[in-house]
């Protein structure tokens, strides 16, 4: 028998009442099948998150939630600094600000299909990816400081992309409050010649076709047309973010002990937001967000150059850029009061509803674009934030499909060569840097993204706008 007994409080919303040291309940957005896949792992981790000081509303799991470290992946937790709220480096995770951006092309799927092989080869050649390639930019320490302070703005000032791109990213492409001095020399070293690289694992660049429009009004605002091709890039802050996370998790283990914060799991190591460790981590984490934003901005530029080399009449504005692993200072209405909260989203996307000031003017009427990446070979989706989601999940939604099978099992079951053949049969041009890497990312190792998106839509977290089908996939 399960120790945890979440019960349904509304269609697609389950609740696990606060018990023992839990300060708030756990809230899970799922249907019955997704609940079964989450098993006790996710519920245990949510009840641990619910014990942390200053947590408000509930420890939440998005529909794609699965076992993580400390927080589940797909976990959301908001903390009130005035109530002793904490920030947790483990709660943000290793790949700080890993995220997705989508670029429109104005070129039809038909035209892309006719040049698919050539385009795939060129993208594979021009987008630095894979582990240890060291094919990215080498930048001086002074430039690194600028990048860590300014994010995508720095990249645009260096000629990577256009000023108009900045209006289409969270916080205008720059995470404010970044403190480059809080980023160690080791973290900087881990980024050596990796600026502007895709990385490995589940990171990718895809050329996709808009196959379905569900919400014509929002699709029009986002510039999405059925039958058009778009480009989506999934990557993060590279080794710099991993090292920032590693160092601050270690520091916070000691800090939690000295602050007498009981940790049910050391991966939840945290520090009060208003402590010097908490502030230092926030400064370093925001610098890592800027690193990720700059990285995606440079890759955007490389993708545009390559794509317009094949299609000179392409018009390629940025649709939007979302981050998955962050802790953001946001204002939310809580029990009727406007409250400043620090919202951890680990493997979850911010999904602000219509009318929010932080949204680009063009999207303010329809809500924030929520870019949901599928697994390799499956559909991706574009959703829009809702007013309902602002209340029920503090403006958060799913980020992808969510893993269901271990990497070890995947390698045994799906040899990389076979994965390539199968995707080619589905008319997807795939280019990868490692057979083993491809095997680990076989589509079957993930939950069904369509179901995750259905539940996000039906539970009101974010509404479906468009479905994208991959044409070309470049894997790290």
């Amino acid at each position, binding site marked *: 028998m399960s120790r945890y007994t979440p019960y349904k409080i509304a269609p697609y919303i389950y609740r696990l009442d606060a018990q023992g040291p839990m300060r708030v309940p756990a809230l899970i957005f799922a249907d019955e099948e997704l609940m079964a896949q989450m098993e006790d*792992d996710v519920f245990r981790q949510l009840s641990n998150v619910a014990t942390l000081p200053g947590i408000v509303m509930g420890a939440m799991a998005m529909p794609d939630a*699965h*076992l*993580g*470290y400390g927080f589940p*992946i797909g976990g959301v937790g908001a903390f009130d600094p005035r109530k002793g709220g904490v920030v947790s480096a*483990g709660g943000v*995770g*290793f*790949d700080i600000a890993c995220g997705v951006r989508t670029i429109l092309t104005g070129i039809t799927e038909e035209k892309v299909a006719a040049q698919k092989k050539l385009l795939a080869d060129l993208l594979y050649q021009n987008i630095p990816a*894979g*582990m*240890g*390639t*060291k094919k990215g930019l080498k930048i001086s320490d002074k430039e690194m400081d600028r990048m860590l302070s300014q994010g995508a703005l720095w990249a645009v000032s260096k000629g990577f992309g256009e000023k108009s791109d900045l209006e289409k990213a969270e916080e205008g492409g720059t995470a404010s409050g970044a403190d480059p001095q809080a980023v160690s020399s*080791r973290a900087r*070293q*881990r980024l*050596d010649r990796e600026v502007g690289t895709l*990385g*490995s*694992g589940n990171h990718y660049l895809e050329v996709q076709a808009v196959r379905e429009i569900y919400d014509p009004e929002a699709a029009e605002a986002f510039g999405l047309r059925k039958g058009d091709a778009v480009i989506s890039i999934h990557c993060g802050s590279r*080794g710099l973010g*991993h*090292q920032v*996370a*590693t160092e601050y*998790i*270690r520091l916070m283990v000691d800090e939690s002990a000295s602050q007498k914060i009981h940790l049910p*799991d*050391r*991966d939840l190591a945290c520090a009060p937001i208003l402590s010097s460790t908490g502030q230092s981590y926030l400064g370093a984490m925001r610098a890592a967000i800027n690193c990720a934003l700059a990285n995606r901005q440079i890759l955007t530029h490389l993708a545009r150059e390559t794509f317009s080399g094949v299609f000179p009449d392409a018009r390629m504005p940025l649709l939007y850029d979302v981050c998955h692993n962050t802790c953001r200072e946001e204002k939310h209405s809580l029990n009727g009061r406007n409250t400043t909260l620090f919202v951890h989203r680990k493997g979850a996307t911010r999904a602000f509803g219509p009318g929010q000031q932080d949204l680009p003017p063009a999207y303010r009427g329809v809500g924030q674009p929520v870019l949901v990446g599928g697994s390799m070979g499956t559909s991706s989706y574009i959703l829009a934030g809702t007013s309902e989601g602002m209340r029920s999940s503090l403006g958060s939604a799913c980020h992808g499909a969510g*893993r*269901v*099978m*271990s*990497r*070890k*099992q995947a390698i045994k079951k799906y040899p990389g060569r076979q994965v390539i053949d199968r995707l080619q049969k589905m008319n997807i041009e795939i280019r990868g840097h*490692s057979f*083993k*890497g491809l095997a*680990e990312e076989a589509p079957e190792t993930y939950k069904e993204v369509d179901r995750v998106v259905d539940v996000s839509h039906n539970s009101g977290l974010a509404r479906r706008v468009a479905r994208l089908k991959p044409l070309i996939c470049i894997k790290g």
Partner: protein
Amino acid sequence: MKDTYWKHLEHKADIGIQGVGPSPELAFAQAGIALMAVVCDPDSIERKTTRTVKCRGSDLEMLFYDFINELIYLISGEGFVYSHLEVQLDDHGLKAEIYGEPLESTRHSPAVEVKGASFSGLKVFPDHGGLFKAQCIVDV
């Protein structure tokens, strides 16, 4: 029966590393190879140069956690890959000599980057047969 070896452990999203040996030192060294094998085939790595890794502390599990993170930095930060480790433990901490060479992507064909060690599944313990096991899950 072989008493010094490494293996990978199942984990839903990532991968576990485990080193086994007659002493904690040998178990730590084997776990280091298990970590390397997540990235690439240790047999493809030649012992051309050495690096030294030091960690301070007295808690064996925390030392193991710090040790694995040091190795991850060596691989990802310095681009150094290895195929042999000699680990010494005393009351003050750990010192390890790491034998390997600079990473060459064509020759070593690395598959994935390891981001960091987690506390999940972190354990250093003697099993019933008296062999030491050192293990944790790493995020990839």
